[in-house]
């Protein structure tokens, strides 16, 4: 029947084999949906291998619910956190058989006294039929994902259960909790937690048949027995105990009607659990056992608390890890190389564009250069010589007409009442130094032909000198001081001057200012 089913090649499936003393429940999930479940009494059963052929890529987990697992609390001396692990390891090696699967869960330190360490030592005897299941699972072509213990993993289950029962309803939880589940492969699994941590577990087989009243009676009795056990671990009635019983609907009804279980027990069916935890298809209303629900919860839950393995399974996992790592590294190299190659390839387009542009620029430059060379050929004289001549002409022609220009500018101011009797020009403009190098000295004679008054004549002289200064604004122009009134008097014949003299001589000096014009 299984062989007829279509093989799934998707890697999104996960499989858990919950191994008990009566056989194993195999559950395959896809996300949070249970897609297939199977009970097999022995790993040699044909249905066992057929199941895995349907999901060849699904990793396989083993969840242990056998009788042969021991949980014992140990108090360790208050060594440093670094050394406690070594101490625990040594003690595990000493206390348990080499073939056993062993581990320890820290339960915290004592709050008073020496502050000793508390550990829960765990061991699972690796003997048949349990070892047969591990061997069979390890030999499957599927990836082996490790061995996990149902009581340990139920700590996570308890958290979600408490959320549903207490937190959402706003009720206060007790310090102690107990889960009693009726499992097909193990029997009545009882797990006790203190402050959410596993402290005790036991399993017992049903006695007297599987009828609801017998099962309910068994549950009541085993629960009372367990409570007696945990009293030795420090439980007392004042601290309170929350009891969760997961059993078939008929059993639940009977227990709810008349239960002798301690405190306020909560009875749940597998179907109710699956519905509340969102495990689709993990249980039907008629399901009597909780294995499938617990298995589905474990396999869909992301966090797993304690992973165990034999030397053989560890080696298989190591090799699988090497293979995965190798493929990962190769994939990384391939991706990186492809990324670089793609990057380089894209970069070539940019480079090609640059080449194209550069070629264009080069061609244009070459063309211009050619045109210029052709132009230069058209010059019929040596450009070097021409440049020298032009340069020298510029230098030697500089300011050559300046003395005449100065005279011409002066002459433009002359108003026929003055005449220049003498001009002396000294010009060093031909030298490199140009500052104050051109000087003209003029003797200017004013003729008073119209016998004007002194005041009028002086006004005319002022007007004339101002006009000369204005015209020759780029030169320094200075006139000798006019004769004073006494001289004018003398010039006028020794009497108080009423008329101006006939001629008055001024000395003018005109110089370049040193500023370039």
């Amino acid at each position, binding site marked *: 029947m299984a062989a007829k089913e279509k093989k799934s090649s998707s890697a999104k499936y996960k499989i858990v084999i919950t191994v008990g003393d009566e056989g194993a429940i195999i559950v395959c999930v896809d996300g949070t949906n249970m897609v297939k479940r199977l009970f097999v009494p022995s790993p040699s059963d044909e249905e066992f291998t057929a199941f895995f052929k349907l999901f060849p890529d699904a990793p396989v987990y083993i969840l242990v619910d056998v009788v042969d697992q021991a949980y014992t609390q140990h108090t360790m001396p208050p060594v440093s956190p670094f050394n406690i692990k070594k101490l625990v390891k040594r003690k595990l090696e000493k206390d348990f058989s080499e073939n056993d699967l062993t581990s320890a869960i820290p339960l915290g330190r004592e709050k008073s006294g020496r502050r000793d360490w508390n550990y829960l030592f765990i061991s699972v005897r690796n003997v048949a039929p349990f070892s047969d299941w591990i061997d069979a699972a390890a*030999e499957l*072509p599927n990836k082996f994902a490790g061995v996990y213990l149902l009581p340990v993993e139920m700590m996570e289950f308890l958290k979600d259960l408490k959320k549903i029962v207490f937190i959402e309803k706003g009720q206060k939880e007790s310090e102690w909790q107990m889960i009693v589940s009726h499992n097909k492969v193990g029997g009545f699994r009882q797990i006790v937690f203190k402050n959410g941590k596993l402290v005790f577990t036991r399993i017992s087989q049903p006695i007297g048949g599987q009828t609801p009243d017998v099962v309910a009676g068994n549950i009541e009795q085993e629960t009372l027995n367990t409570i007696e056990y945990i009293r030795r671990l420090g439980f007392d009635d004042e601290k309170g105990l929350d009891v969760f019983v997961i059993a078939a609907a008929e059993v639940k009804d009977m227990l709810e009607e008349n239960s002798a279980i301690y405190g306020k027990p909560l009875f749940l069916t597998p179907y109710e659990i699956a519905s509340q935890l969102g495990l689709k298809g993990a249980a039907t209303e008629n399901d009597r056992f909780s294995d499938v629900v617990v298995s589905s919860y474990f396999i869909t839950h992301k966090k797993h608390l304690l992973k165990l393995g034999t030397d053989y399974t560890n080696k*298989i996992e190591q*090799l*699988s890890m090497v*293979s995965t790592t*190798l*493929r990962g*590294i*190769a*994939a990384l*190299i391939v991706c990186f*190389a*492809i990324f*670089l*190659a793609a990057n*380089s390839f894209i970069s*070539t387009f940019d*480079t*090609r564009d*640059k*080449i194209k542009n*550069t070629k264009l*620029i*080069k061609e244009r*430059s070459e063309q*211009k*250069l050619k045109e210029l*060379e*052709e*132009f*230069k*050929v058209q*010059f*019929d*004289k040596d450009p*070097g*010589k*021409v440049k*020298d001549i*032009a340069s*020298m*002409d510029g230098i*030697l022609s500089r*300011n*050559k*007409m300046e*003395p*005449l220009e100065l005279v*011409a500018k002066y002459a433009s101011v002359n108003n026929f009442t003055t005449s*220049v*009797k003498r*001009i*002396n*020009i*000294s*010009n*060093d403009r*031909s030298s*490199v130094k140009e500052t104050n190098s051109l000087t003209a000295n003029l003797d200017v004679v004013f003729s008073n032909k119209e016998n004007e008054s002194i005041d009028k004549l002086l006004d005319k002289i002022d007007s004339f000198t101002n006009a000369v200064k204005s015209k020759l604004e780029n030169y320094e122009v200075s006139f000798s001081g006019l004769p004073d009134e006494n001289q004018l008097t003398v010039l006028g014949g020794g009497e108080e001057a009423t008329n101006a003299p006939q001629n008055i001589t001024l000395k003018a000096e005109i110089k370049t200012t040193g500023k370039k014009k």
Partner: protein
Amino acid sequence: MKIAVIKKKLIKDGIMSIGAAIIATSIYYYVGSFEENIKKELRLLSRDESMVTSSLINSQKEYEEASNAFTALNNVKEHRLPTAEGYDSAASRIRAARPLIEKFKKKYEFTNLNVTFSGIEEDKNDEYKVASLKVMGNEMSVEFQGMSDELIFAFIYSVIEEFPGYVQLKEMNIERNKTISDSLIKKINDTATLIPTVSGRMVFTWKTLKGEPLTTIEKEDKNEQS
């Protein structure tokens, strides 16, 4: 048994992974080499382009300089252009100056005009250092008596403009000896003689360019050079 299977798978995975890595790396190497070759081509091309651009800039500069020089040369008067001798001897200067002096003496009605030359020397002023030319210079002293200051200034202008090379007035001293009056003009008209009213002295610096004269370059040679 499973370990053997896993090991076999591991070897297979290893071979495939290494193969894939080698192939991918080879692809990258090939593409990378291809890219490097293209970049190399770009570098070479950029270098060439840079050289061509540099040549172009130099050539443009040369062209502009030459073009400006030729434009400037058009403004240089022919009698200022360099000559092979560059009037580097007193004899050559006197030969050049004599006809001009005679011409100006008549034109500007000098009653007396004496010109003397100083020795000729190369002017080694830093400003005059060019590759193909030398500047030869001397001073020219002129003592004169003339009819009017205006004629004297016209004379100066003509000397500056018409003498070969470059002439500049260095010193000038003009004195008016007589005032032009109606009676003086009447006397000139009556006697038909020139009566000087101004006299003086002036000194010119006279510089000429000595160098190989400009000749037209043979186009064929130029073409060959280019």
